[in-house]
Structures are given as structure tokens and as C-alpha cells.
């Protein structure tokens, strides 16, 4: 299957990843080989597959009980930027 450069760029954007042109070329080639392999799946006849997903009962859900949270220091302790107990993200423009 062919995947266009435009599609690859769209995927990179969905993935929030940058690639150099060189990386992109190498990547497109790898991607094509992987997809050719994965496309073998289309040949498998799955018309008889009944859904047999594992299903949990409602009873196995969690009781509505409050348990202690972590301290604010533990929560924001790993943040590259924090201020007064908040995480800091780049400015969000709505």
C-alpha cells in the first residue's frame, strides 16, 4: 500500500512529532515495508468471528470512597515548570 507524504505529515502532526526531510524519507520506506506486512491481515477471513471480549460485572467497579491524595509536592515535583502549586504550560490561546 502506498502512503503519501501528505498522509505521513498528517500522522506526524497527530503524533506531535517533527521529522527532518531525511528522517521522513527513511521513515516512509520503513513504514511502507511494515504496512505491506500488516496488510496481510486483510486476507484473513474473519466473517465468522463472534465478539468474545472479556466483560467485567458492574460489581467489580470501585466503591465510591475517598482515599488520601498525594501531596502537592509529590504531584508537581517532576514538573519541568511549576509555580505556587500549579503546573505551568505554555500560554494557551483560545
Amino acid at each position, binding site marked *: 500500500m502506498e502512503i503519501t507524504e501528505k498522509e505521513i505529515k*498528517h500522522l506526524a*502532526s*497527530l503524533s*506531535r512529532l517533527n521529522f527532518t526531510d531525511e528522517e521522513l524519507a527513511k521513515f516512509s520506506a520503513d513504514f511502507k515495508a511494515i504496512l505491506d506486512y500488516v496488510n496481510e491481515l486483510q486476507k484473513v477471513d474473519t466473517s465468522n468471528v463472534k465478539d468474545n*471480549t*472479556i*466483560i*467485567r*460485572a*458492574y460489581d*467489580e*467497579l*470501585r*466503591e*465510591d*470512597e*475517598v*482515599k488520601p*491524595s*498525594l*501531596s*502537592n509536592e509529590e*504531584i*508537581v515535583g517532576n514538573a519541568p*515548570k511549576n*509555580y*505556587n*502549586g*500549579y*503546573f*505551568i*504550560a*505554555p*500560554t*494557551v*490561546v*483560545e
Partner: protein
Amino acid sequence: MEYDVVIGLEVHSELKTKSKVFCSCKNEFGGEPNTHCCPVCIGLPGALPIPNKEAVKMTIKAGLAVGSQINDIAIFERKNYFYPDLAKAYQISQAVRPICIGGGVEIEDKNGHKKYIRLNRIHLEEDAGKLIHNSKIGGTMVDYNRGGVPLIEIVSEADMSSAEEAVAYLSKLRNILQYIEVSDCKMEQGSLRCDVNISLKPKGSEKLGVRAEMKNLNSFRSVTRAIEYEIKRQSRLLDEGEEVIQETRRWDDARNRSFSMRRKEDAQDYRYFPDPDLLPFKIERSLVEEVKRTMPKLREEKINDYVNDLGLSEYDASVLTNDLNLVKYFEKVISYFNKPKFVCNFILTTLLKKVKEDEENDDLVIPIEPQNFANLLQMYESGQISQAICRELFDEIWTTNEDCLKIVKERNLVQNNNEDEIKEMLKVLIEEFPQSVQDYKAGNTKALSFFIGQLMKKTQGKANAQIASKLIKEMLD
């Protein structure tokens, strides 16, 4: 050209469980930033979600209250997009198999015309964190206390055709959610939020127009204004032969207009798929039956109770029960002062008028403690204070919520019911204003009110007005 307006609402309502929907952190409004947080709700690597039973139950309850069908198997899915308020960069939500399907609510317009608004679904999902812009530090502050709070999304069909209907639908939903006690529905705190989808089509046309989605509507007033604005905007575009673009628009209440929002994700591809951490789960019929049995009284039943047991009129009961906050307040007040009709009258006249002075007070916040309010009414009803003093005090404690018993005592506002004393004071007034006496004798009964007014001025409103008017009549006749 004339257009038909087609409106659908997506209403988000926070459930009032004790803990969050996928972890055991406290579900509480506010709090110091990032203190109701754990590995699960801030999306630390390796953390895993477990659904909250009560949140599922409340969703079922909401569904039953609006006649939805409850699916026997429900699936949580991931809605993937990057945004700083979304800790995991996906929201756990429901797409193909929500907990509730279908249902609907009946609304009524001013003229009593009824209309049925169909629901598409109600699903359970998690709320996002809060973003606060801070230009001083050149960034946006992120607080995940709200992240993971259980949220139901109630999606209507596009069955509404005016702002009035949308507001009627929203307030009906709010009323139901409050009555079944699954949500506080406080618009100001964001526990009830609403997105509106709106499109226009030439009058009578079958073909649906292109719709815009309006976000950030956090009061009834902004819902009305935003819809009216959008109808104007779209009809102007269509009149001029331009295209309406399918987009999300953000309502700016201060500027009274909406703005096109920057899109969250290219082409809005949310890549929904079943959350592998959350297996599908089964909702037994027995559970649905159990929820049915614990369903609290809805508004219609309350009205009946008030009419039959408390002796309120049908009309009064219906106004009083329109909002559960008001119902709860009323019931608390009468637990201290058991004169339901008297209390109801005061609430419907004086108190509601006061509430509505603040257009933004959609949540009917009543700042006076019920007991304080009961004390005030009791003093008035028993003649301890005059009506004038009662009104004044009501206005005062609305803003201060100070103890009215204490104020009456300290300022000595107790009503003067002593006939002899009142007679003495009236005598003085009769001598002071001979012209008014003559007016009265000439047949001008307004002169009587003049004397009462003067008396009140003299006594700072403390004289018993009823006694005084009886006396002045006797004295002048």
C-alpha cells in the same frame, strides 16, 4: 429570507460522587491547586483507572429519569487530543456504547404549548483540569483538581427551534438532575455546562444547514444571547449568499459576541478506541431495578405533596418547586417555623424578587441562613416587628447575613403595640398638621396615610401600623 432554526444541546453535568470517576481522590469544587490529585488523575506513567460504581449508578439514574434505555454492556473509550487541561492527552469517554440511549423531556412555552425534545444519549466521562492564564509568569497555570471529576454528557437531538426552547429544555434538565440528586447543577461553578449546535435552513426546507458549535455558555442568559447572536450571524451570511463554516465558536459574554476558536486538533480526528485499561462492563437488569426503586420524588410529585399536605395553592407550589435549591430552602425554613403558607408567600414575593435582581444568579443562591430567615418571618408574623422593619431587615441580612434577632435587640426595633402610647403620638401629630385634619374632614382619605407616614418617620417604623390606622380613624371621626 426566512429561515428555520435547528438547535441541539450537549449538556455536561458534574456528578456529586464523593470520589472522582476513575480514582479515589476527593470530588470537591475548588481547593488548593493540585491537592486532590493522585497518579491516576494527573496521568503519571503506569497509573491505571478503575471506574466508580456510584458514578455509573448516577448515570443510570439520570437515564431512567428521562426515559432512556440502559445498555446492558457499556464501553469506555479514549478520545485522543493534546491540551494542557487533559493530563493523559486523552479523555476517557463513551462513544459506541454509552450507558444510556434515547429518552426525552417535555418542555412548555409561555403559552402552555408542550413539545417533546428527544435525547440521543447520556454517557459518562471524566472532566478536564482547569487552566488559568497568568501573564506575569508568561504561561498558563494548570490545576488538575477538577481533572477526573465524573461528568455526564446529555446529548439532545436537534429538536429545538428557538433560544426560548433551548432555555426551557436546559432548565427542565437541570430541574430533573437536581431532583434526582446526581448533580448540584451550579452553572456558576461549572457543574452544569452547555454547548449549543445551531444551524439554519430555508423555511420549510428538508435539507439541514451547516452547523456551528457554540461553547462556553455558563448561564441561561448567555445561552439566550449566544443563540440569538448566532441566528443573526448565520442568517446574514446566508442572505448575502455566503457559506456558513462548520466550526466551534467561543461565546464571549462580556463582548456579547462569539469568536471562531482555534481548532484543538488538526481535522478533529479524535481517534476513539476502546480503552484497553477498562474492559467493557455489564449492567445487570437487577441493578437498573434497584436504581429505579431509590429514585427520589420528581417535581410533579412535590407539587402534589405541597398542595395536599401543606395547603399551598397549585400555582404557588409550582413556582416554588421549579428549582430544587428553593425547595430545599423552603423545607428547611418551615422546619424552624412551621407556617408553610406564610413562608411560601414571603418567598414568592419578596425573596424571589430579590434573587432575580441579579440576572446572573441562575443557581438561585440565597445568602440568608434558613434559620435566620425563619426567625425574621416569625418575628414579623407574631407582630414583634412591623412589616416595614421586616422588609428593611430582610434587605440588610441579604448582604450581611447577620443574626436578625440580635439586630432587633441591639437597635431596639421591636414593634410598639401600645395603644395609649400610639394615641399620644397621634395627638401631637394632629396638633402639628391641622391642614391635613381639614383635608380629611373634607373627604380626602389620603390624609390618613399621611399621618401614618409621619408616625412611622417619628418612630423609625416601629409603631404597629394596623393599630395606628385604627386609632387615627377613631380620633378624626
